[in-house]
């Protein structure tokens, strides 16, 4: 019955094997790289799909296998893997997107001379992400968590000859590190306070779910907030979101895979996995909800004023991740995960579409594009589907998940409901701006020679477009299947006419406004820029968060570093130099003594002898 779940440990091994083979092959086997990478992820996808089909039945039992890893005294650390419905769903999402990105990269990265290395990194990332998903305890999850961070670093900095890519890779690594440190401290605290120091999710669930009182509320809140800090770093939540837009310096398929669909969702996944801890602490839940809500509206407004197609999508990702966090904070685990599920497909679709566009026009500035709709029909249509799904227009998948989040918000926290609606409006507006500027209107300079991308790139687009349409139907206001499958409890239908109507209304309003301004042109695009230039500037620079960090954190740190380096240069280095100079001058002096003449040597011997004798005899005269 659960044959496939028992074999789940095999899933990460396919990409790992692909990574090892690719690393061993080196750069010469260009075609082989594509095939090995794709086959590795395809095999992983096939097995994941089998597991999910296996578990579709109403009451599939979680499968957990663990073995003793470390024994210290009477403490035993066990690691293993666990297959629940949540992890099974994540497995499918990760492997599917990974496979599609592998296929897509065959076209996109075709002329890159390090394509084999690229495929190796992607395979390593897929392995790490799958390991993260399958981990049955927080410690191994943390190991894979760091591993995906490393892969992200490697892939963002893949074109390391570009200074901006190097800087972005460093930034991504350092900023997420702040969150990782929080997560690590959280895990250590948990290890300290848990009965028997258990770190596996099953025990965590039973300890916190059963309200055994083993851990006080204050500590629970602290642990939850620290874990949330890790999620904030990884999932690009405010205030640690700054790395994600910069990470767009990496290859576009990577942006789709890592920075839209999988790794950034790991934060959401982490909270979902440790949800019992959060549910024990109302303060932590509220923090999650407010941080998520703020990030959602904050990033959405920033996305309105960006001109780089990938940065728009990056801020959109930040915003959508904010929605997921908000849902989790509002006690709607299903809403958060559901949005993660749909978002993975349509955001990967949008990124891959953007990659297709960039591949065709060789620019990322949307003001230099235009009129691409007739030249790139497949890209345009699939992109439109993705944009509609993101904007929350029925029947596309994004509508259903966002609707569920908004419903949860309306039930518990009207303020966040309003924030969510405003965010949805902004989302619809920036997506329509993007779409109309890129695909409609007259072709601009860069769009002149554009043509449709090869089949390896359009095929993933079509697959993802289909998924972006249908993925939402697993959970509709009338059909709570996904929620009950995920949580194991029957969930009632939660339809709310108000939410549906409001959600559709703001979505359509946003699109209409976007069409007026950027499509039809009946409203001047510069009207806001003329009236409120500071506002546009503020949004363009994303509220000057980067500049603020530079002024508040980076500059003082650099000043301390400079002071320390001056100290090092003149004090430490000075001492070293003086010591060196003293030694070498003593050496020079004694080298002059070594003039090769025996008489000098014997003279030195005589003087030394006299000094020794005087010293010995002289002691007699000392008191």
């Amino acid at each position, binding site marked *: 019955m659960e044959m496939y779940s028992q074999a789940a440990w095999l899933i990460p091994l396919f990409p790992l094997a692909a990574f090892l083979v690719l690393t061993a092959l080196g750069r010469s086997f260009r075609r082989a790289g594509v095939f090995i990478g794709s086959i590795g992820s395809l095999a992983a996808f096939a097995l994941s799909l089998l597991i999910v089909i296996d578990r579709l039945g109403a009451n599939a039992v979680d499968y957990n296998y663990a073995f003793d890893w470390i024994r210290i005294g009477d403490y035993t650390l066990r690691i293993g893997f666990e297959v629940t419905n949540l992890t099974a769903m994540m497995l499918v999402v990760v492997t599917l997107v990974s496979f599609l990105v592998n296929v897509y990269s065959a076209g996109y990265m075709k002329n890159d001379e390090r394509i084999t290395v690229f495929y190796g990194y992607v395979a390593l990332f897929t392995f790490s992400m799958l390991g993260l998903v399958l981990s049955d305890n927080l410690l191994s999850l943390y190991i894979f968590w760091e591993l995906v961070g490393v892969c992200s670093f490697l892939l963002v900095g893949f074109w390391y000859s570009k200074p901006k890519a190097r800087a972005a890779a460093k930034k991504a690594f350092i900023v997420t590190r702040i969150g990782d440190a929080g997560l690590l401290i959280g895990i250590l605290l948990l290890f300290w306070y848990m009965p028997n120091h258990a770190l596996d999710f099953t025990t965590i669930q039973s300890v916190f779910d059963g309200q055994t009182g083993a851990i006080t509320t204050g500590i629970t809140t602290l642990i939850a907030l620290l874990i949330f800090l890790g999620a904030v770093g990884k999932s690009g939540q405010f205030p640690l979101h700054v790395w994600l837009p910069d990470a767009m310096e990496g290859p576009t398929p990577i942006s789709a895979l890592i920075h839209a669909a999988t790794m950034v969702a790991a934060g959401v996944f982490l909270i979902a996995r440790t949800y019992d801890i959060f549910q024990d602490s109302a303060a932590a839940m509220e923090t999650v909800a407010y941080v998520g809500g703020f990030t959602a509206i904050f990033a959405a407004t920033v996305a309105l004023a960006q001109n780089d197609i990938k940065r728009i999508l990056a801020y959109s990702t930040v915003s959508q991740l904010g929605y997921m966090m908000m849902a989790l904070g509002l006690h709607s685990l299903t809403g958060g995960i559901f949005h993660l599920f749909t978002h993975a497909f349509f955001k990967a679709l949008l990124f891959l579409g953007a990659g297709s566009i960039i591949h065709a026009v060789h620019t990322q500035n949307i003001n230099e594009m235009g009129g691409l709709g007739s030249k790139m029909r497949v890209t345009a249509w699939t992109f439109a589907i993705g944009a509609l799904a993101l904007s929350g227009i029925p029947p596309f998948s994004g509508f259903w998940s966002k609707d569920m989040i908004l419903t949860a918000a309306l039930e518990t926290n009207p303020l966040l409901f309003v924030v969510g609606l405003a965010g949805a409006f902004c989302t619809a507006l920036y997506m329509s701006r993007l779409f109309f500027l890129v695909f409609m209107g007259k072709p601009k300079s860069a769009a002149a020679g554009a043509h449709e991308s090869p089949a390896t790139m359009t095929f993933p687009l079509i697959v993802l477009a289909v998924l972006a349409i249908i993925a939402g139907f697993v959970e509709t206001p009338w059909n709570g299947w996904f929620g009950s499958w995920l949580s194991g409890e029957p969930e009632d239908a939660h339809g709310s006419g108000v939410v549906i109507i409001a959600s559709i209304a703001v979505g359509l309003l946003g699109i209409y406004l976007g069409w007026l301004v950027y499509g039809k042109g009946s409203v001047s695009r510069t009207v806001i820029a003329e009236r409120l230039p500071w506002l546009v500037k503020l949004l363009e620079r994303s509220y000057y968060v980067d500049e603020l960090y530079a002024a508040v954190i980076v500059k003082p740190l650099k000043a301390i570093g400079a002071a320390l380096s001056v100290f090092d240069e003149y004090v430490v280095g000075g001492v070293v130099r003086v010591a060196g100079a003293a030694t070498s001058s003593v050496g020079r002096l004694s080298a002059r003594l070594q003039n090769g003449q025996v008489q000098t040597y014997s003279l030195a011997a*005589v*003087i030394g002898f006299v000094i020794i004798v005087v010293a010995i005899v002289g002691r007699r005269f000392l008191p």
Partner: protein
Amino acid sequence: MFNIEFSGEFAAFFVFSAIMISGAVLMISLDKVVHMVVSMAAAFLGLAGMFVLLEAEFVAFVQVLIYAGAVSILMIFGIMMTKHQQGEREPVKPLHETLAAVGTLCLFGLLFYAIRSTAFPEPQPFQAAEDNTMAIGQLLYTGYVIPFELLSVLLTVAFIGAIVLAKKEAD
């Protein structure tokens, strides 16, 4: 401290030491190498006289024979076989010479201090043998026969070594 009664031995000692010191100092201060060797021979002879004062007749004899005779001749041969620019006054090394003078003076001061501050016990009366040479010969062939034989080996080795070293390469 210096209250030494003017015995015959002391007078002889004074004469011999005057010869030796003047010989040694002349050896240091003369310009010509041959003169140095000659003054050195005078010092050796003075020492031989001092050995006689110490009732070591055989040693005095050997001293005259080997030092004043053989070694001096050897040195003169050495001088003759090598070239010596007469009167060359070497580029002086004042620091080196001053240091050497100071060092040796200090050393002498130390030795003198040691000699003066040591209380030598009154020796037992020295029973000089009837025949000093015979007594030494007996000792050499009984108690010190092994060092004696070793010395003869050493002399042989030195003899052969000297020939080998001084031989012309071309031969």
